[in-house]
């Protein structure tokens, strides 16, 4: 028996999986996937990739900049989240406890009118890093930084600085500096 190839695009498969189709489209997709092993296998691979991405988030393996509402959902799902709130120019003493799943820093900042937002992180260990074009809601009153948990666990008494920079073409404007005085728990 010869194998057919999948005729659906990855975007179509993902739209189906995420419930973005209307009822009639979803029903047609259901029928197609039950009749087509190639598309079904392709979707399964996509679903497994999504689960692995989710695992990376829950493992705290990466640093992210995410909306505060998203962090609320992580908490609602049972993750233990240690939170810090900083005003522009503010500093905080911070740590990570053994049973913390994630540590987040809510950085208040005037984002209205900001078109592109960059993060500049400085710490004595890894020097200065610039993360360009982070995802943010211009209508929100700040952004939420979720640092890598394994990295935080390596820190002793160390000071990290974060700068938020609004970028518009070649123009740059600092909209907030934040200092984290880390101590081991």
């Amino acid at each position: 028996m010869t194998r057919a190839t999948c005729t659906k695009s990855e975007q179509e498969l993902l739209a189906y999986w995420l419930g973005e189709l209307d009822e009639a489209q979803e029903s047609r997709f259901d029928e197609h996937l039950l009749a087509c092993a190639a598309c079904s296998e392709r979707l399964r691979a996509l679903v497994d990739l999504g689960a692995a991405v989710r695992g990376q988030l829950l493992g705290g393996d990466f640093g992210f900049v995410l909306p505060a509402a998203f962090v609320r959902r992580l908490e609602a799902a049972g993750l233990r989240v240690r939170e810090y709130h900083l005003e522009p120019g503010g500093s905080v003493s911070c740590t990570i406890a053994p049973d913390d799943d994630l540590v987040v820093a809510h950085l208040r900042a005037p984002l209205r009118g900001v078109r592109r937002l960059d993060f500049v992180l400085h710490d004595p260990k890894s020097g200065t890093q610039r993360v360009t074009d982070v995802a943010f809601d211009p209508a929100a009153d700040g952004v939420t930084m979720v640092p890598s948990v394994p990295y935080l666990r390596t820190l002793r008494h160390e000071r990290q600085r974060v700068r938020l920079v609004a970028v518009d073409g070649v123009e740059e404007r600092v909209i907030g500096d934040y200092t984290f005085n880390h101590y081991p728990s």
Partner: protein
Amino acid sequence: MTSDADDDAALARQIIGCAPRRDAGAEAELCRRLGPRIRLYGLKHLRNEAAAADLMQDVLVMLLQKLREGAVREPERVASFVLGAARQMVIDSRRSGRRRDRILAAFPVDLVPADDEAPEPIDVKRLGRCLSALPERERAVLVMTFYGDRPADAVAAELGLSAGNVRVIRHRGLERLRGCMETAGETT
């Protein structure tokens, strides 16, 4: 080239043609082929791996029983039969958690469908490297999408973007991630 539907139909006809005797080989092959697809349908509509595995087994048991009884009138449309059965079982399972017991009591068979082959596991270390190499915006959109399998409009609402914009970022991010995973796979 024959389609999957043609191959499924050929196996269904083989089972019907053999009745009342059992064609164990054809039944096993049909279960092997349809099982993963039914399981994926279950996962989509029930969002639970264990419930999806139960659904797969229940639908296959019912399908084989109906084929042996000659109750599937259009074997060339076996996928439609499976969809009808799966859809009804999902509705039942939402109404009552006792769906499985009722079905197994109503359609007793002695064949336990084989589970599908385990898919190749994702190399999480490689995935980690590839995720860390993504632009921050794409990484955030992918994480927000796959945590809870959220549609573009829900992700867009949290980021102050349009759903269309999120779809574009999601598409780019997935392409870049997959490209990185494949490249890394060739070089390691």
